[in-house]
């Protein structure tokens, strides 16, 4: 099962390698990992998506908590959370294809961020399913380049059953 972990860490050199090393050393897998600063300059937030059965994910969470530089770990899988990923896609869009690519972009509320005679670069934000859907739709035009941010997530303030 896929889990999204929100991990607050000390913002200091080597902290990323401690976390990454923990996953590789213990044979856990990382599907995506996103790190960025928080409003407090000495704390960073990592969002890690991983897969594993309950026992493995329990170990991952405990092992992360055991790292001295990790301040807090929350498994957002058990909470209601907003999850987003951003993707930049450079897709073929010559002549007669162009209109259709733009239509799909419109339906998915993508932004066109770069244009050339032969291709368009789209910016898409959404959860995993939305990203998967648009990639599926655009593939037949030919995707030239592709950059993906990895998931970021926040717990929803109102947890409704």
């Amino acid at each position, binding site marked *: 099962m896929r889990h999204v972990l929100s991990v607050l860490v*000390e913002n200091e050199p080597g902290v990323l390698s401690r976390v990454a*090393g923990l996953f590789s050393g213990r044979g856990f897998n990382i599907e995506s990992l996103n790190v960025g600063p928080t409003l407090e300059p000495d704390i960073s937030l990592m969002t890690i998506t991983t897969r594993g059965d309950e*026992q493995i994910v*329990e170990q991952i969470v*405990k*092992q992360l908590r*055991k790292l*001295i530089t990790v301040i807090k770990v929350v498994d957002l899988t058990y909470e209601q959370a907003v999850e987003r990923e951003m993707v930049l896609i450079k897709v073929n869009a010559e002549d007669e294809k162009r209109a259709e690519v733009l239509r799909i972009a419109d339906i998915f509320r993508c932004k066109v961020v770069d244009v050339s005679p032969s291709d368009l670069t789209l910016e898409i934000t959404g959860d995993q399913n939305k990203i998967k859907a648009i990639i599926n739709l655009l593939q037949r035009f030919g995707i030239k380049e592709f950059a993906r941010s990895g998931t970021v997530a926040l717990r929803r303030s109102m947890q409704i059953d």
Partner: protein
Amino acid sequence: MELTGAQILLECLKKEGVSHIFGFPGGAVIDIYHHLPNYPFRHILVRHEQGAVHAADGYARSTGKVGVCLVTSGPGATNTVTGIATAYMDSVPLVVFTGQVPTALIGNDAFQEVDIVGITRPCTKHNFLVKDVKDLAFIVKKAFYIASTGRPGPVVVDLPKDVMQAKTAFSYPEKISLRSYNPHYEPNKKQIKKAARLIAKGSRPLIYGGGGIISSGAHDILTLLARKFKIPVTTTLMGLGAFPAPDELWLGMLGMHGTYAANMAVNNSDVLISVGARFDDRVTGKVSTFAPRAKIIHIDIDPTSIRKNVQVDIPIVADCKLALEALLQELEEMDINWEQEHRDWLDKITEWKESHPLRYEQSETKVKPQFVVETLYELTQGEAIITTEVGQNQMWAAQFYHYKYPRSFISSGGLGTMGYGFPAAIGAQLAHPERLVVDIAGDGSIQMNIQELATAVSYDLPVKILILNNGYLGMVRQWQELFYDKNYCATCLHKNPDFVALAKAYGAEGFRIIKPQEVRPVLEEALKIKKPTVIDVWVEPEENVYPMVPAGASLTEMLLV
């Protein structure tokens, strides 16, 4: 007044109450060594940095204090890695200071540069690179705090040369708190109550103890609890000494080379109380058939130990001592005749003990290694500190010497580091000058750190090295015999040095035992000598360690003698 980084480091060590530093100098740490004579530490110059870490480890395990090492950059630092990993696996508190090239050169592939913080990241509890002399005192404080609290472990502090030379004002933080590190000591009361009820309900309880009992100082309370409520006790290799072996509730070690009684008790128990142990594969055998009839209570200070290998019924994250105290109190309030409740179970255990004790075939002509260890026990009455190397020697030391006190059996359990025992014995001897310290070794293992004979001789340490010399890497040979068609590939050490002559060359004493009749008189004489002493015992070459549970088999599938 401003002090240099080197002076600040040494001032910090003084504040931490350090008595011994195990080390080896080099270019990157000369500044520290330059000031060392002005401080009250006893510096022990080893002959290889691995020896320094194992010696500090032996010091730490035999005292409970933090062991301290000081080595140079590059190869000095990499040579400590095996020692650090050994301490990490067995939760031993160490602080290892490594020299580093000047900060301006870091990353330039400078002479004797290595990224030791990167290298040791997965085998330390934590590690630090000190980039500014202003941070030094605080980092040293953190290093000792982290190493010695919670589940103890080794911490590396990397010290660039220019940081050691830079100056700043010195002040040492008295107290420390870290927002990201708060070990949990107090047991949850509800869980303790549940555990007590489970024990009361059961009729075949068993305590399965580990090294955590020793590191938390819970041996007395464990002994009290076991005796009061008539609960038999087995421990892991790391737990030997946590419960007095002469006691009738003692079953011996469990696991791969555990006793028949201990493994049968695990298999038949209905309440397994695991205290400070981590269900290692050498203990459980096949996990799915481990303690199949038991509800499991698991007390451990490290949450990751719980449910890592085995599903448990009542997890208790706490310091073992505090948890056992709470459990004792809870059980005392119950109106139960424990003696009567557990009588049948204890009788059954006695039956197992009597039907299959640890045994070996005695010989008139060949020295049996078990006999040597047994004789050592008789001569010392269990009062010695025993360290071991790894392999058959280690298992015989665990089976045939009987440990009455915690911190008297010192062995590399988790990592299984050959070459550990002798330097560890040096560390233990320095911490306990008045006690007899014996390294039970094999002819293979001892050669992995034999250079430390020079250290033992230099400091006039009366350490005894008892080599059970079978001319083989015995445990591997045993596996080859039993599971690999007797293909003794690369396990025969047919041109061993003359260990007696070697001992003498180093300035130590040397004895040789070839016949069974010599074992007692020669050992008796050798143990009296107040110098480093090697006793080279030529034992039966193809003797095996039994019982043995083949790797991956269930605990009840024991090969017996």
